[in-house]
């Protein structure tokens, strides 16, 4: 049994060896010329403005989450629609319950003002 | 039903106390006292109704409790437990009377704690199912912990936590051993799962199993006794406990350990008992002498009495592990006597402490001049504790030494010295406290002689001390069948005669 893993072990060894060897070779060959300009972020030739770790307003997240919920709903709706003939009335009722549950959440979010863009 | 009634009567008392107003202190006290006196009368009735010549357990009650595990609610008494039961009910109401005036703080909780304590102690002595025994054994722990912790002296919290942890660790190891016994018995007795003492003894356990179980039982019982070197919690607990707590602690809690050895270790694990016999005798001899020597140098009156307990309880262990009738009967009687005498000594210390709030031996002196009646009572108890013939202490110690000489004259001779030392420290203590002249003059006004209620609780003790001393047969007659049964169990299993 363990012999089956020899290949994987070799692969790991070769992978690590190759990476290490490349870095070592580069460190030996390349010219060393530290320069502050090298550390600046480069974006389309325009100098960067402000901090990249900016905060986004909370309402973006709320919208993103609501989107996610209804996006996922479709994931369930598609296979259901494809198999609709076989599932019949029971399938229809199940899907209505499913959608109703989602609607309750939607209603709650609405009432709580999650959809208002203040 | 009688035993259940005796054990659970304190619970009725708790139920009566609960709706009462905490301000109404005298009603609380009187109710507790009446309940405890009733319990004491019931136990006296039990003593009278007890058939002294019959062997085995009497007044048995046996109903399923944790049926799915084969555990039962099984109560019963033999001569050993009936004496200790009586001692418990007696000292309980005496303890309440002794702090009639001293405890003014949270009287209601105090009374409830004592009632629960009594319930636990009574249960320990009558339980014949090991699991039930363990439950009662642990119930005792909590009220005592609260009594020392709430109504104790300045270092009460240290003392009470030390007391709790020492005893709790010991008991938990015992619990593991009890459960091991449960399965070992099931394995040896065709899968019969029980912890009934009457059935556990019918099986012969291999020595390799007996040894660890004995050690676990030892952890629980030797801490309670307390056997040197596990005694260190005792002086702390005694010094900090209120008088009533000390009385119960010395009078009954210490007996739980001796009772445990007698009821479980020796009969159920006979070979381990023989195996560890020399070790136990050695430890007991050390305890006897060590307790006496340490008593000799105490400056605190109560600590002196506490260390004398270590010495006296050493005699009990000595008597148990010599495994002959004289030793065992002496040990049991010594337990009974120690309950009466040390209880009484603590009461006497408490009486003076209640008046002057001082226990330094160097501060006191000449009390006999101010409290003559008290001095007379105290002298009898002191002499009884010394082992003066004609008083209780003598009989027990004499029998124990008789038994010890039959087994090991070395242990006998060494233990003998403790009696001489006891005469030394107790007489010296009496002289320092009672005679010469009062070292702290302004105490004189406080030293009022005994009050009526104090006489009321000292008198029965006095009567019993003299009764046991003059005519011990009344009490020894209870013990013959129980002791011969224990000895039969201890020697039958391995086919071993007493060494």
């Amino acid at each position, binding site marked *: *049994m363990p012999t089956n893993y020899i290949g994987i072990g070799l692969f790991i060894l070769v992978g690590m060896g190759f990476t290490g060897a490349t870095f070592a070779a580069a460190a030996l060959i390349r010219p060393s010329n530290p320069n502050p300009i090298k550390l600046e972020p480069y974006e389309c030739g325009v100098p960067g403005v402000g901090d990249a770790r900016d905060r986004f307003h909370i309402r973006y997240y709320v919208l993103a989450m609501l989107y996610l919920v209804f996006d996922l709903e479709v994931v369930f709706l598609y296979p259901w629609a494809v198999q609709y003939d076989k599932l019949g009335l029971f399938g229809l009722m199940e899907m209505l319950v499913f959608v109703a*549950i989602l609607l*309750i*959440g939607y*209603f*709650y979010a609405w*009432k*709580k003002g999650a959809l208002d863009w203040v | 039903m009688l035993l259940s009634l005796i054990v659970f009567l304190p619970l009725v008392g708790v139920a009566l106390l609960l709706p009462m107003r905490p301000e109404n202190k005298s009603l609380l006290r009187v109710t507790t006292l009446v309940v405890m006196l009733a319990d004491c009368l019931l136990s006296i009735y039990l003593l009278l109704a007890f058939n002294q010549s019959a062997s085995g357990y009497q007044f048995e009650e046996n109903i399923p*409790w*944790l*049926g*799915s*595990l084969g555990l039962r609610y099984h109560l019963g008494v033999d001569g050993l437990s009936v004496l200790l039961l009586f001692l418990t009910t007696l000292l309980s109401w005496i303890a309440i009377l002794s702090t009639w005036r001293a405890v003014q703080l*949270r009287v209601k*909780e105090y009374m409830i704690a004592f009632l629960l304590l009594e319930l636990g102690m009574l249960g320990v002595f009558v339980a014949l199912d090991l*699991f039930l025994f*363990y*439950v*009662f054994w*642990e*119930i005792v*722990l*909590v009220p005592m*912990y*609260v009594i020392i*912790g*709430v109504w104790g002296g300045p270092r*009460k*919290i240290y003392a*009470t*936590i030390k007391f*709790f*942890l020492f005893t*709790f*660790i010991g008991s*938990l*190891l015992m*619990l*593991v051993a009890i*459960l*091991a016994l*449960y*399965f070992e018995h099931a394995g040896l007795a065709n899968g019969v*799962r029980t912890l009934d003492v009457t059935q556990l003894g019918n099986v012969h356990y291999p020595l390799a199993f007996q040894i*660890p179980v004995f050690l676990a039982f030892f952890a629980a019982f030797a801490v309670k006794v307390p056997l040197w070197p596990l005694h260190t919690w005792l002086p702390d607990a005694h010094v900090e406990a209120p008088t009533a707590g000390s009385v119960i602690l010395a009078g009954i809690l210490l007996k739980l350990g001796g009772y445990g050895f007698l009821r479980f270790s020796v009969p159920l694990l006979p070979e381990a008992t023989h195996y560890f016999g020399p070790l136990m005798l050695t430890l007991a001899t050390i305890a006897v002498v060590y307790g006496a020597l340490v008593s000799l140098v105490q400056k605190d009156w109560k600590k002196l009495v506490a260390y004398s307990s270590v010495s006296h309880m050493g005699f009990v262990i000595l008597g148990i592990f010599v495994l002959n009738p004289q030793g065992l009967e002496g040990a049991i009687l010594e337990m009974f006597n120690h309950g009466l005498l040390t209880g009484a000594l603590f009461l006497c210390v408490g009486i003076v402490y209640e008046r002057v709030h001082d226990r330094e031996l160097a501060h006191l002196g000449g009390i006999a001049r101010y409290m003559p009646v008290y001095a007379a009572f105290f002298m009898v108890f002191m002499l009884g504790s010394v082992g003066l013939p004609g008083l209780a202490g003598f009989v027990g110690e004499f029998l124990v030494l008789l038994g010890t000489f039959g087994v090991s004259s070395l242990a006998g001779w060494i233990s003998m010295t403790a009696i001489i030392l006891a005469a030394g420290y107790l007489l010296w203590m009496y002289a320092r406290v009672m005679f010469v002249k009062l070292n702290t003059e302004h105490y004189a006004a406080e030293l009022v002689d005994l009050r009526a209620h104090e006489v009321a609780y000292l008198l029965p003790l006095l009567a019993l001390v003299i009764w046991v001393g003059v005519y011990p047969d009344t009490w020894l007659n209870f013990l013959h069948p129980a002791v011969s049964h224990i000895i039969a169990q201890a020697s039958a299993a391995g086919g071993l005669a007493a060494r």
Partner: protein
Amino acid sequence: MAVLPEVVVTVLAMLLLLLDAVLPEHRKSGLTWLALLGFVVAGAFNLYQWGSPAQSAYGGMVGADNFTVFFNTLFLATAILVVLMAPAYLRERALPFGEFYSLLSFAVLGMMFTAASTDLISLFVSIELMVIAVYILAGLARREKRSNEASLKYFLLGAFASAILVYGMSWLYGITGQTNLAKIAGVLKATSLDNPLLLMTIALLAVGVGFKVALVPFHAWTPDAYEGAPTPATAFMSVGPKAAAFAALLRIFISAMGPAQPDYSLLFAILAVLTMTLANVVAIQQNNIKRMLAYSSIAHSGYILVGLAAAQPGAGSDQVAGIPALMFYLFVYTFMTLGAFAIVAYVQAGQVTGESFDDYRALGRRAPMTAIAMTLFMLSLTGVPPLAGFFGKAYLILAAVHSGMAWLAVAMAVNSAISAYYYLRVVVVMYMSDTTERVPLYRSPFIHSMLAVASLATFFVGVFADPFLRFAQGATLGF
């Protein structure tokens, strides 16, 4: 009709959410009654199913047997007690009623399905439903930094744990090619046990669930999360999800992997000893009652795990097997822990913090009945007879001794003694110390009735343990 209790709880959760959105602010305290009613009805339906033959639903994803009924009883009792303890605390702190109850219902729903799951997929989804609701519960006091911290820490480590858990499940699926627990058992029975993959699977699953039930060394999130969360949420977290995770542990390790009889008992025994020892030692040093109870809850996870270590697969019908001991202990643990947390919530309700030991000074005089109840819970957690905690521990020790692990029993006994030190500290502070300040305690019939129920349960489940032992034993007959 196998899932009727679950359906009731689902409807309840939806209804609470809807009403919370619709009702005006001052009417919302009425939601307490609705939540109580819902859980009681679900509980009644649940108990009605006791003893009926095992059923399954959703294409074999979910089963309904005595095991489910037992755990559902546990979960619904937890929910009812939490609903009773919450209103005073929530009102004092101006926390939202509707969200609390509805999140609670969703979490309970997740717990119920966790215990009922007979398939890896439904098991994982249920666990996630439960924990996501609890993450939010922990952060419900959103203006309080500690609550944010609690929620975030719980979430990050919880997500991490879920990932490991689902990874372990995927290995299990990889080995057997099945997700149904019974079918996995069937395949495993036939395969060789020295499969290193199986070992890896066991390790991953143990780590994943270990995080959820807070076993050492996967416990680091617990004290912070428990301390920061609103106290009723903490109470719920320390009981509900833990019990559910143990149910999952039983489903995976006993139902699915049991027949293969892998020797994992030493692994769990070592984890158990590590957990209880470390938690107990650290708990001694705590000065915050909530943190102390958090460590105590970790320690109790260790005790409970002893049941699993002692469990011998296939011995389920034996009266002293580890599994009924584990389940009985969970039952007992629920009441005493919820009771202790309820008192923390109760003492806290009137104050800004109310979490340090000093806030309990002289509680024995300020609130005698509360102090007695707290004493009862502390003693029961210590394992002093005749209280329920003692019988739980004794039963676990019984199982450990029975499975030949006397050292484990001794370790548990010694640990109980260590724990006595810090539990008794609470009693010492309540009765043996004095205070001059008199902070008025909040009055709420809800919390008083909750404390009454929890105290009575702690007492009577102890003295009359037999029916409850039989309940736990009956629940494991399916294994």
